[in-house]
């Protein structure tokens, strides 16, 4: 059993063929965790005792022939997913001792499928961040270069999967928080269509933007997980009744003649040259697969970040109002700087006298951004763009200036504003630092995204690379 090369698909096979046991898997991951986590700080909470117990139970069930789609598969959960009985903090001191009394719907679904919880991963506190440096429990480091950031806010999840401390990990993406760390850590990050996966039991950041997804080594793993987490939830009124297909079924189908749009606004100044060339090279690979690439335009792209930084903090300011310390948590004095900044910003743009000028205006421009995508998807089937304008940056490089940090999100926020799905996949390395690209599609086009991503992945084999 070579943990370094495992994927969920391979692990399932291995368990079935009795090449190894779930206990061996869990032990193997904890071995890696003990080796690497102290330097990378990918986990806030580790559940070794419980996980070993669950693994033994899983092995028994496997031997009895019980069939569950993820029986005995170890995963990590971003620490904004409520896990019953397991401390959940959102990486904030406000919740440093919080033990939930219920499971998030996604946690419940994965547990029912047989998943074993390895632990809770580190993140930017309250998911407010694009680097992994804003955790109240210490920053997380990029496994490919420990002086660089792993990206955020799903920093711990990306790092854990990349450094083989977990087979897969859940994440949330409100403005890029799955896709950007995935691209910085050479893993696959899926942001599903808004409403495809239930948000119930996940600490809300911005309610109309939060998408619930995951980070995996491969595209097939990502498709497998989505098949389990997706679906309408009676506890979340914003989940879609549209049926969940079998995302693996057509994943190998040819992508010939699929039309890929390349929005020119995502390739203007601000995009680092070597990131740009990696994406262009990736597009050439796609053409080899038979897709048709053409330039398109999303004219309101330059306003997306402004819209995002009005709507998101507004919703944040409201969603964090419940943390008054009376029913749970240590109270509002424990909020760190970034959370306070966003709460203040959000309170301001919603306040009387300013609401129309900021919040209403942002909602209107959001319509224009969404319309850009609706129009473009009439011409092409999917879009390919960079994920981050830069390579993984140095720790501390952007922390002094909040606005500078916010600008990291320019290519990712658009998908959240429009609610469309996006998958970030490895596109290569520059100076041994990972570069990712994202494939965006219309609402509920995840199977197309998986198909395109799968072919590219198999062609380039980048997922095989691991940090030294």
């Amino acid at each position, binding site marked *: 059993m070579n943990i370094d090369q495992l994927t969920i698909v391979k692990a399932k096979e291995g368990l079935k063929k009795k090449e190894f046991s779930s206990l061996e898997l869990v032990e193997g991951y904890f071995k890696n965790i003990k080796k690497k986590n102290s330097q990378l700080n990918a986990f806030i909470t580790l559940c070794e005792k419980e996980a070993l117990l669950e693994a033994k139970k899983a092995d028994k069930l496997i031997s009895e022939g019980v069939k569950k789609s993820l029986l005995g598969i170890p995963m990590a959960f971003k620490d904004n997913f409520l896990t019953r009985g397991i401390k959940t903090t959102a990486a904030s001191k406000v919740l440093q001792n919080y033990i939930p009394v219920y499971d998030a719907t996604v946690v419940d679904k994965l547990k029912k499928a047989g998943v074993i919880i390895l632990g809770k991963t580190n993140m930017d506190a309250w998911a407010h961040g694009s680097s992994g440096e804003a955790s109240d429990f210490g920053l997380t480091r990029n496994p490919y270069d420990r002086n660089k950031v792993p990206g955020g806010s799903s920093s711990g999840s990306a790092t854990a999967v990349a450094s083989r401390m977990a087979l897969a990990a859940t994440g949330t993406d409100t403005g890029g928080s799955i896709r950007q760390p995935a691209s910085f850590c050479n893993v696959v990050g899926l942001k599903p269509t808004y409403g495809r996966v239930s948000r119930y039991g996940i600490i809300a950041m911005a309610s109309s933007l939060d998408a619930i997804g995951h980070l995996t080594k491969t595209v097939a793993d990502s498709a497998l997980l989505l098949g389990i987490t997706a679906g309408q939830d009676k506890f979340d*009124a*914003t989940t879609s009744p549209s049926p969940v297909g079998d995302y693996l079924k057509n994943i190998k189908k040819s992508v010939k003649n699929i039309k890929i749009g390349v929005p020119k606004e995502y390739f203007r100044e601000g995009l680092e040259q070597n990131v740009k060339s990696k994406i262009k090279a990736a597009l050439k690979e796609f053409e080899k697969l038979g897709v048709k690439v053409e330039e398109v335009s999303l004219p309101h792209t330059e306003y997306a970040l402004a819209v995002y930084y009005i709507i998101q903090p507004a919703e944040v300011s409201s969603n964090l109002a419940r943390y008054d310390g009376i029913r749970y948590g240590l109270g509002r004095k424990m909020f760190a700087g970034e959370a306070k900044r966003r709460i203040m910003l959000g309170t301001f743009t919603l306040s009387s006298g300013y609401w129309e000028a900021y919040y209403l205006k942002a909602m209107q421009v959001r319509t224009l951004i969404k319309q850009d995508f609706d129009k473009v998807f009439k011409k092409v089937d999917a879009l390919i763009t960079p994920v981050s304008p830069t390579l993984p940056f140095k720790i501390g490089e952007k922390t002094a200036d909040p606005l500078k940090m916010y600008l990291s999100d320019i290519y990712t926020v658009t998908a959240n504003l429009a609610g469309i799905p996006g998958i970030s996949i490895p596109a290569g390395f520059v100076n041994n630092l990972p570069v990712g690209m994202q494939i965006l599609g219309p609402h509920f086009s995840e199977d197309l995204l998986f198909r395109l991503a799968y072919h590219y992945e198999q062609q380039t084999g980048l997922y095989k690379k691991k940090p030294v």
Partner: protein
Amino acid sequence: MEFKVFIGLEIHIELKTKAKMFCRCAADYFGHEPNTHVCPVCLGLPGALPVPNKKAIELTIMVGQALNCQINSFSKFDRKNYFYPDLPKGYQISQYDLPLCQKGEFEGIKITRVHLEEDTGKLIHEIANNQKVSLIDFNRSGIPLMEIVTEPDLRSTTQAKDFLKKLQQLVRCLGVADADMEKGQMRCEPTVNLEIVKNKRKYYTPLVEIKNINSFRFAEKAIEYEIKRQLEEFEKTGLEKQAGNKTTRGWDEKRQKTVLQREKEEAADYRYFPEPDIPPIRLTDSQIKALKSKVPELPGVKIIRFMNQYGLSREAAINLIRTNIRADEFEKKINEAKKYGLSLQEIKINELASWIGGKKFNQKKKLKEIPVIFIVRAKKDYKLPKEKVIKTVNLVIDNNQKIVEEIKKGKETAIEFLVGQVMKETKGQVDPNHARSILREKIKSA
């Protein structure tokens, strides 16, 4: 000084649903142990999300229709943001610019809007370890709350009290709420100001919103007090209504006065925005029509009908329609009597009405059959020959052995049931007293 009173009412009524507004917790929380009717949603736990109760929406629309409102075919929920310990999420899910119902009229008073929101938890003030503390119970948090706002069309305290009573009667009759003020199921906040004519000029006193009103009596006293106070204050200060000088006062039952609660109405900035967790509500014309057809006969209409149809006095009619159960039971009994072949004149209608409308009537048990004591018929109208009577009596005895046993054991009153059965069998053609005596004979000798 001449003056005119302007009273507007803001009324909150807890809707009678089985579950809470946004979660599945049971809505019958009153009197239960604290914090036992609570879930992640109504407790405001991290990650919890609201899903609206369909029935609560329907009931609110029904009320809006009964109040002759326009029903908005497109409506949504909004967040009203403010901090208070009884508000677990730090915001209340309510409705702002697109309420379910608006622009109606009831009892001559214009209704501005009827909307739906959630109730808060309850605070109890206590002293523990020489410190003032507040204890919080969230059982009430998330209960569906309907808010009705009127225009300032009410012109007197009596009119306001009347309006409240009629509104209470209406929602009870519709079956949408119990609206018991003592249990906090109906709350009222009147806003009062005066138009004063002095030296041929009109002056308006600043608006005052009155809180802490727990009964119709309090409402009456508070408004009366406030009118006097505003007159006095105007005479003293001449202060007039201006944008931003509306104040809030609380009724202090102990001191029998209204007391200022906030220095300046720092218009609380609620930062309303559309609730992102709940998709909007869109109703078709046919759905709105279908809900309208569910609106039962309104109290005002029913009172008049009862008066005309049954010859009841207005008082008796009002008493009966106090609850749906009583009114329905009354009409059911009348219809039963008709099946016996009795006419209205042969029933002691007023006695029946006052019995069903009275305290002794048990709303759960109701009447098994129309009690014979309410039936009066001239002896000459009993047409059935003696043999037939005896035959029927025997039949009734044979079919009701259990009751006969009870009577034999000493439960005398059970015989009324048998009398009723005889009446039923003979379609009322028997003098009940006569039937009773024959039954007694037969049972004794059996």
